[in-house]
Structures are given as C-alpha cells and as structure tokens.
C-alpha cells in the first residue's frame, strides 16, 4: 500500500522531484535494520537481512548464548553472514576482519569474595589454596590460568571460541572440586 503511494510523485512536487523520491526509497532499502542509517561495512544474513557489521556484532555480543537475527529470529552467527561489496569500494576488505568498535568493558567484581583470601579473580584467574591440616597438606597447589600463551588463537576465530569454552569448563571443574573439598 505504501509502495504505490510512494511510487507516484505527489501532486505538489513537480516531475523532477520523482527521481529524488526514488533515490530516497532506494536508500531506505539499504538501511541497516539496527541503526536505521545506510548500512556501512554492510553484511547480509542467510535470511536476507541487512546490517552494518559493527551493529550486528554488538548485538551478537549482547546475547552470545542466543544469537538470532534481530528481524526474523533465525539462527545467525559470525560465519553465517555475507559481506557486501559495492562498486565504489576499492579495497575490498572483509568487514568482519576489521575490529568493530566494541562496547566498553562492563565487568563487575564477583560478590562472593569473602572468606577466601587465596582466591583472586583479577587479571586472568589465579587461585591458590592450602589447608593446613595434616592429611590435606598435600593438596596445596596453585592454578594459574592467566598466563598469556604464545599459541593462543586470534580473537574471533572458531578456535578462539572453543578455547574459551574449554577454559570455562576447566574453571568450573576446578571450582566444583574446591567446593567438594570444602563440603565433602
């Protein structure tokens, strides 16, 4: 309905304005579905929806566990979007390889910091615990997950995600083990 009324030049506007109207409509078709501006570093999802890569990236980061297309809620991910290259673009660089302007870090300190001076969740993860009583003395150990490893995969690749996932699993296993030690 809106299409037909838009296609006709309005009576007040002379014929020369019709081109401008058409141009405006073309522009609207290339608007990012998130910021509503003309999409820059445009990517299109498998379901056909257009976004700026920085906008879509921010949305994917907002809900990493449930990545869905903002328009149709189809499954979506970094690897399931296609970059679009217009003609004017001389250096055809994949927008996904540019680091998008990321939101500022928003980490909060964990609340249950009491009791265990040996725990610190600062930069990386350092944990050491020692229990003085005789039979447990042997368990005294130090975990150190925070060391930068030279072989770490670059940020954003599938390998990086997997490594993060594994490291989280090990972290939880360690926490469960400690809890078991305390309560068992």
């Amino acid at each position, binding site marked *: 309905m809106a299409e037909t009324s838009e296609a006709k030049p309005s009576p007040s506007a002379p014929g020369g304005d019709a081109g401008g109207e058409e141009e405006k409509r073309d522009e609207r078709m290339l608007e990012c*579905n*998130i*910021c*509503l*501006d003309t999409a820059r570093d445009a990517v299109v999802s498998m379901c056909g*929806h257009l976004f700026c890569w920085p*906008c879509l990236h*921010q*949305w994917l980061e*907002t809900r990493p566990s449930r990545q*869905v297309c*903002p*328009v149709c*809620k189809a499954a979506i991910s970094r690897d399931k979007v296609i970059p679009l290259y217009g003609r004017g673009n001389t250096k055809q660089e994949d927008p996904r390889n540019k680091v998008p302007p990321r*939101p500022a870090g928003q980490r909060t300190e964990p609340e249950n910091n009491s009791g265990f001076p040996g725990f610190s969740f600062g930069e990386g993860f350092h944990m050491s615990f020692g229990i003085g009583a005789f039979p447990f003395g042997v368990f005294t150990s130090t975990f150190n997950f925070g060391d930068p490893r030279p072989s770490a995969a670059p940020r954003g690749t599938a390998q990086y995600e997997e490594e993060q996932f594994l490291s989280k699993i090990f972290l939880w296993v360690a926490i469960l083990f400690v809890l078991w030690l305390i309560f068992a």
Partner: protein
Amino acid sequence: MSPSERRLQKELMSLMKEPPPGVTVDGDQASQNLTLWTIHMEGVPGTLYEGEKFELQFKFTNKYPFDSPEVTFIGNNIPVHPHVYSNGHICLSILTDDWSPALSVQSVCLSIVSMLSSCKEKKRPPDNSFYVKTCNKNPKKTKWWYHDDSV
C-alpha cells in the same frame, strides 16, 4: 550525537510523520529529552477499550536499541487488562526476553494496541495486589514469566 540518540531522533521523526492509528507522541517533550518519551494512545473502536485514553512512558538507556526500552502505562487511566498491573507495568515478552534491536517504538506501540484490542474480558492480573506491593519500580527488573499467549 551518540548512536542511540541518532536512532531515537530518526524514530521520533518517523513516528511524528506517520504514527500508527490512535497513537500520538509528545514530540516537544521527546525532542527535549530523547531518553524519555510520552505517548498517547486511544482505545481502538470496536474493542473493550473504545473511547478510553491511555498514556505510555518510554525510557531509553544509552545502550538502546541493544537494550530494550522501559515501557509503562502512566497517568490516571491504566487499562484494566490481564497483562497490565495497576501500577502500569506491562507483562509483554518483547519488552524483555524477546526484545530485538530491529523492533522500534512504533512496533512496541502496535504490539500494545493489539494486546489491548484482543482482550475478551477486562480484569487485572490474578497476582496484581501482591505484585504491585513487592515489585521494583523498574519493570525490567521483574523476572517475567510469559505463559499466556492468548491475549
């Protein structure tokens, strides 16, 4: 201008130019403070809310549109509806869990109009008095349980 303000400005322009039927935005107030909008809504003719007038308040954070707006009914006429609490809080999934940055003030207004229009019986939610006494001022802090898809 921040990206969220830029988008709100665009939305305000289009909502003032082409509002959905029965919906008007207080443009002066919204353009003075882009993070707080008041929207007037009329009950759709032929529904239980015909002839009634409601006021909706939208509050936006600087993370909009990645973060959903805080939407409540305000003023002295809060619609009597099974999903609207007497303090103005609305139980509507797109306002929290199902929010998407492709939604807009206009689409939220349309959803609320449609939620009201499909109502078969004017009544408050069953847990109204308990919820109103115990809830946070911000409806987004409520852990909503979306179970009734009929209205």
